[in-house]
């Protein structure tokens, strides 16, 4: 069914007239020009298309655009503020938590959602949460290092991390 859908996208109002059933991934990438969310499998398995809807992770390749009506959508492009990277982005940069970079937006958004809920998450918890995000290059060790560094800093303010 075609209709108008309004939502907030990376902190700004967005609206478009489109079919309800279209998948959020393709609306973002084609209609809205945000290509940070990637197609990896089209079946919600790999996590390359991950975005946040009201702060919760969602697989945009299987999410109908109607599901974001009146909600807040955050893509990788919306995670940094005024040029300042999100602590998880900064940590990926410092720890080399990426190689080809294709899974990276999904990894970072998933990790940022986890740390919002559980700021001092353990390495095991982080690994369990990222289990369903696939990386083929084998950057896993450094992805865990990066997220764990942010979690340590958050869990222990004396270590100087941003809350």
């Amino acid at each position, binding site marked *: 069914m075609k209709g108008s859908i309004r939502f907030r996208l990376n902190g700004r109002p967005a609206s478009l007239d489109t079919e309800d059933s*279209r*998948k959020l991934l*393709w609306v973002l*990438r*084609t*209609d809205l*020009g*945000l*290509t*940070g*969310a*990637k*197609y*990896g*499998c*089209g*079946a919600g*398995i*790999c996590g*390359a298309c991950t975005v946040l809807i009201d702060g919760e992770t969602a697989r945009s390749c299987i999410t109908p655009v109607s599901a974001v009506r009146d909600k807040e959508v955050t*893509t*990788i*492009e919306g*995670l*940094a503020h005024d040029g300042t*990277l999100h602590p998880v*982005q*900064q940590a*990926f*940069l*410092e720890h*080399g938590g*990426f*190689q*080809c*970079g*294709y*899974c*990276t*937006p999904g990894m*970072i958004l998933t990790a940022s959602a986890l740390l919002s809920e559980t700021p001092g998450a353990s390495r095991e918890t982080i*690994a*369990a949460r*990222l*289990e*369903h995000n*696939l*990386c*083929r*290059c*084998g*950057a*896993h*060790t*450094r992805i*865990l290092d990066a997220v764990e560094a942010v979690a340590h800093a958050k869990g222990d303010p004396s270590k100087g991390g941003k809350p």
Partner: protein
Amino acid sequence: MSPVLESSRGLDRRQFFKLVGGGIAILVTAGPLELFSQERRRMYPEDLNAYLLIGENGRVTVFSGKIEMGQGVLTSQAQMAAEELGVALESIDMVLGDTDLCPWDMGTFGSLTTRMFGPVLRAAAAEARAVLLNLAAAKLGVAKADLVIENGVVSVKGDPSRKVTYAELAKGKKIARLVDEKAVLRSVAQFKVMGKSPRRFDGREKVTGAAKYAGDVRPPGLLYAHVLRPPAHGATLLKVDTAAAERLPGVKVVKLDDPDGLVAVLAADPETAAAALAEVKPEWKTTPLDLDPENIFDHIEKAATHAEEKDRRGDVTTARSAASRLFESTYRKGYVAHAPMEPHTAVAEPKDGRVTVWASTQTPFPLRDQIAQALKVDTQKVRVITPYLGGGFGGKSAGRQAIEAARLAVATGQPVQVAWTRAEEFFYDTFDPASVVKVTSAVDANGKITLWDYAVYAAGDRGAALFYDIPNARVQAFGDINYGQQRGTGVHPFATGPWRAPGARMNVFAVESQIDLMAAAAGIDPLEFRLRNTADARMRHVLQAAADAFGWKPRGSGARSGKGRGIACGIDAGTYVALIAEIAVDAATGAIKVERVVAAQDMGIIVNPDGARMQMEGCITMGLGYVLSEEVRFHGGEVLDHAFDTYHLPRFSALPKIETVLVKNDDVEPQGAGEPAIVPLGGAVANALFNATGKRVYRLPLTPERVKV
């Protein structure tokens, strides 16, 4: 020194400066190539595109036909250029994989960027430094010997106020120079930029989502194509009914006369195109082919008949009859998918009589030529631009999707994207071939190997060369790793191709398993057994380094506790590597958990130590797949795996603790880093399995079913 700038491949000087502005450009031609081996000359033929340009603003642009697929060569190449040129790393801009701007290159594979292209790039940068030094000497009125270079500034020794910058020297110049003398490269002791681990050039773009991949290129008027695919390799299209698809609003149908029958639907968004494809009614003719993952090995042995003898030493026949006990083994490995996270993607735009193709490709120049051939135009009419690749691993040496996009763009007169679905990616992948190794060996009472009779089928001989000192040996390769890319021509029911260290993973799995079983039979510690049988200093060094880091202690094979450790080693891309894996085996399920991997690697001079470690970690983590879980399921030409639900990549839960040891060896020029560490993982884990359970498994992957039964 007079540059004659005419070339069938590159631009002429006028065109080049028109594109890039003024400055000082360094081009490489036959001169320095005489320094290199015949093999290198073949790979880097005379070519007059520039390797680097010192712009009028003092910024340095490096042009390289290599591509960035995650391996970090965007940064490491900049380091090499900055080092030889004497500029800060920050003043370097990189242009990769653009066939209009970059020097010809055969492709990014084989861990060749650093060891083969590196010396050429460094020579070009050293030549630029010499040109700038000459200009500075004239400008400052002093002898070259009295000048020093630092961070792009040339100054007089002892009088730093008398100076001139590279920017000032390049201003108003249109100098193009060929490298025609033996370049003197800087030594390790002089290194300021090489040997360090600066932050990667691609980092910020990749963590912010700004990094552009082929599918992120969106020219105005872009059409998204979905192409009709056969149900199996070898199927032929009898007829196709596109009437229903053609009636859909906003949908274009293109049917091209083609041996493969290229039928595509195109629309302004990919979902409309996908829905339209579902309305296309094809009729296929398939011929049954009774091949599957179990009977393929016998088929390969029968089909891969062409034999090449790669090595022969001593007298194998006599050694065979003299042996008190023969160890005869057959090793097998199934087909493995590349499964990059980014499926093959391309965008083609026809404009002003040329076609520009942005492609996820490891081989932009050969791909340009293939596209030109498919379009029946001159290669000058095609430009391939390579954005970031979302992984390659050898699989993006094949560029079918880019040819499809170019043909559809020409057919419609509009920009067209072809982005394979995950199912298409599995179907058209050029799989790592299934292969077989048969080996017969013997060992004497002193624990010295006396016989090695080795035959590999369909994997080639990479990784099969002997570094063990065996007096009587024969190494034969049957078929070829790329033997039979098409169904019906021989060995494989679908296309196969290079996969990160092609052939070497299979050969080293077989070799190192065989070495291990002889060590066990001789009652000798597997590390000691290897050291006793090789005098190769680099190999002994990495074995010892891995053992030291691991804390290896000889112990009997009687533990059988479900926990074990195994060692394996190999040579790949000029690099020596030894791995030790520690595993736990679940007796109830047969599942292996690799808990710890220690890797020691001698790759000669190291350009970027952290980058090297990342590649080693990547090799080990990715390698867990071919070792434990990855094997393509198929029936005849039908590929039964379409998605990640049945084809299992390694995930975080499989991750071992990984420790990397960089074995210093500055006496050897930089060697490959992207592939070696993946090579011995199969042997190390299989040997650990034997150590843990007493059971030897001769087939990869080491699935729970095979471990348990």
